[in-house]
């Protein structure tokens, strides 16, 4: 069980917020206390794995592919709580290859390039979103259906490796 992937799952994310509210109110202390123990315990496991793990991955999603194309794009938000680093690799079991692509729209021309890394400043953020930088997933082994959840493993320059769960969304989602 990976704390990071838990945090990034949007459905669980909202549950975590509720949990935090509960802690403030002390309205139902029993279950909240149990949750706190679990929370702390999981946190300790997280730290145990790697103390240099300082990039938090949020809002991960992948667009459904449009047949017959076996390619699609993935998006996420990277929040760096440590020193400057970069996202340098991405891997998904459902795709042959996952590349980092940077996109620029200059004078109404879209330019997409494969990149070796996407830098995230110390204490900064990097957003991969439609119309901008994205993960390009090439050679999908099957069609991705909206609503399903797939695993993405991200590698960072600082050695951090994080596996996150990405929800597949319908084209036009954001």
């Amino acid at each position, binding site marked *: 069980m990976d704390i990071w992937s838990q945090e990034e799952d949007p459905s669980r994310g909202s549950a975590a917020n509720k949990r935090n509210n509960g802690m403030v109110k002390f309205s139902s202390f029993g279950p909240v206390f149990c949750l706190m123990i679990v929370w702390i315990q999981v946190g300790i496991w997280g730290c145990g794995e790697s103390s240099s793990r300082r990039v938090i991955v949020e809002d991960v999603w992948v667009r459904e592919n449009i047949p*017959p194309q076996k390619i699609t794009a993935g998006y996420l938000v990277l929040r760096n709580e440590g020193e400057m680093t970069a996202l340098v690799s991405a891997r998904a079991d459902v795709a042959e290859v996952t590349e980092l692509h940077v996109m620029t729209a200059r004078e109404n*021309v879209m330019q997409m390039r*494969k990149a070796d890394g996407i830098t995230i400043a110390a204490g900064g953020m990097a957003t991969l979103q439609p*119309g901008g930088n994205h993960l390009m997933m090439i050679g999908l082994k099957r069609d991705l259906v909206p609503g399903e959840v797939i695993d993405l493993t991200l590698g960072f320059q600082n050695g951090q490796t994080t596996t996150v769960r990405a929800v597949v969304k319908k084209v036009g989602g954001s």
Partner: protein
Amino acid sequence: MEDASRNQRGLRAIFRLETWRLVTGLFCILCMAFWGCQPGQQVSDDGRDLTLEKEPLPIGGDFTLTDHNGMPFRLVDQNRPVLLFFGYTTCPDFCPQTLARLAQVYFELGESDLLTVFVSVDPGRDTPENLKMYLSHFDMPAVGLTGGEAAVNKVVEQYAGFYERRDEASAAGYLIDHSLYIYAVDRTGGVRFLLRSTDSVKNILKVVRQL
């Protein structure tokens, strides 16, 4: 006695206030009505004028390519308003996003004979069959066009578009840089407005409704 006159004064004050409110309210409504009635003024989210050009722009015009059923497609034969743009089906981000946005435009528009024309700038990989399957994913009347490289290049040039194949190392094979305009074409085949790739559904609707 004093109380009664005070009440009366109070009532009069309220009455005056209500009249004042009524007058300002009516004034506001009249202003809005007048503003809305100004002929042809269409303004985008970011304040750009979205009014169609009175005459077709000097770019664009008629052409013939092959449609996704393998049949010849001639623009002027359509006799219906068209939204035209350049793209390719291996494009993972911009093209599906734009098509999804246009599908939303159709949803908002309701009954309409507007036609979406997706001109492939990847004649090497986009066969009519591929285009047909790809476009069927979007709930709207869209035609995919392809042709020989020379024929496609001619149309791109005619529409002052741009595309360039980038044979850089990517597992996707080559990538294509391409222009992002969406051309709003009237029934006679004249380009009457250039929409931007970033234009919202609302902006596109404002333009389309004038075609």
